[in-house]
């Protein structure tokens, strides 16, 4: 196996583990598939893995986690317009696995251009280089330049000009060269 294949295999194994598949066969010539789910908790999962699972896919948990319901209830119960103004965003992106997502390293307000009315630093379709300024995040009256950490094409912007962003929130998606 070459390293490329090794990587694919790794991903496949990760995927099967995540989905609690116990056995999996596949043939190509005229396709044969065989899937057998694991018996439940073959080994006690470690904390980090668990946290990841909880964070990424609560609905796939073997037992219904209290979390999503609590959240739903809180929203349902609260005062007239309880929609979290700021939260919610961070998990939404990352759908296309090939894209690199630039995330906000700080809490603050997102600005697309160096000053009001001037042209944005970047727009969809631009080719960007590592270190190129993509936007400004204002925090405590300080303007923080946010640099690109991958070279490639800007394919998506997740936030609006003037929008508040939290730590780790997705800002841009870059298709790496």
């Amino acid at each position, binding site marked *: 196996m070459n390293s490329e294949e090794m990587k694919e295999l790794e991903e496949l194994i990760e995927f099967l583990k995540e989905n609690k598949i116990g056995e999996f066969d596949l043939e190509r010539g005229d396709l044969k598939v065989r899937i057998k789910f694991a018996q439940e908790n073959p080994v006690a999962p470690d*904390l980090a893995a*668990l*946290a990841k699972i*909880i*964070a990424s896919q609560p609905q796939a948990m073997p*037992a219904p*986690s*209290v*979390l999503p319901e*609590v*959240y739903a209830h*809180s929203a349902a119960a*609260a*005062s007239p317009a*309880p929609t*979290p*103004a*700021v*939260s919610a965003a*961070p998990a939404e992106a990352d759908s296309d696995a090939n894209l690199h997502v630039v995330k906000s390293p*700080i*809490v*603050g*307000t997102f600005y697309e251009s160096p000053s009001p009315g001037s042209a944005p630093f970047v727009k969809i379709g631009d080719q960007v280089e590592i270190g190129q300024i993509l936007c400004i995040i204002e*925090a*405590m009256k*300080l303007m923080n330049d946010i640099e690109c950490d991958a070279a490639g094409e800007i394919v998506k912007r997740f936030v609006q000009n003037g929008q*508040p*962003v*939290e*730590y*780790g*929130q997705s800002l841009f998606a870059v298709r790496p060269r």
Partner: protein
Amino acid sequence: MFRKVLIANRGEIALRVICACKELGIRTVAVYSEADRHALHVRFADEAICIGPPRSADSYLNVPAVISAAEIADVDAIHPGYGLLSENANFAEVCRASNIKFIGPPPEVTRLMGEKEKARQAMKRARVPILPGSEGVIQSEDDALEWAKSIGYPVILKASAGGGGRGMRVVRTPEELPSLYQAAHTEAANAFGNGDLYMEKFIERPRHIEFQVLADQHGNVMSVGERECSIQRRHQKLIEEAPSLQVTQKMRDEIARTLKRSLENVGYQNAGTVEFLMDEDGKLYFIEMNTRIQVEHPVTEMVTGLDLVKAQIRIACEAKLSDIVTQPIQIRGHSIECRVNAEHPEKFTPSAGKITAFNVPGGNGVRVDTAQYAEGVVPPYYDSLIAKLITHGKDREEAMQRMKRALEMFVVEGIHTTVPLHRRIFDDEEFRAGQFDTKFMERFFERQKAM
């Protein structure tokens, strides 16, 4: 009243503050680290903002991140809870500069109380009893004998440069003073290159007793009773009670008058706690002041009927003390709190992980303050406190019996907790008799070993 408050904390105290805000009709903003995305303070706040990675220094202690969050959420005020940024005068200053009300005392007062020797002198000036001691360095054996005479035996000699017990001697009689003085002096000189010694009154079996105070922003200060916090392990409180069996109503009234005077002098504002040591004769000596809400504030709430966190918020909103505490403080019954930590109950090693079952006790006279739940995760990055179990009864006996049955019914699976330790303490005769001091846990562990 404030329209919106940001809670710069996590865990049970963040949820406690959220509850107080909800009851006052104030919108709440939670901040959280990446490790706390699924924490209950995030779920139950009206808004939530991720402010950084798991490490406290990068999130909950990150002043620019907290202030930025407050600004983008457009809050009127920040409640700091306890620990973290709560006694950070610089943070309070940045809040002020950012036009956000810090729910606590002004930074100047926090700073004064944070410098122990200055706080001591300020209290001394206001005639609050402080632990008697030599003023500055002892010059000679004779000097030492004189100080000891005026302080009263036993006394303790300490190295000015010292720490860790070296250069330290307990002196019980004038006869043994000279030789112990020389020994301490020599040891200090060898250990620290400086033989300077000072002297303090030595309390063999001190109790830790603290007084809760409230102060409005109009110059009014009020003491709302004391808490007994002598059950400690390595200076970490495990169990707290209110009232203290050692404090008579006369003492309570006296201390209240003294604290009113002294804290009005220093311009104290908001909630605070004044800590004292009590000697074997029941005399109290000021140690230090905590300029925030305490972990153990619920026992005071249980016996007074006050809501101290709501009081904090209303004070920060300019309310007058006379509108918050409308009737004379009356201590009703007895309350005890057990701190339930995510720790091994014997080895005290932290026990992070996923909670698989979580059944909290309820019923008459039982209060639980927690932000944990079944399927919740205790991250390894923070304080190990996961719940406070508080009982209230008509007297200490009833409060203890309630605690015993509540501890029996408190089920946490998936991680270790100190619940089994508490169960054993509540079976301990010395504890039940109330005849303890800050050395209780050492004796308790000895007894446990012997069993």
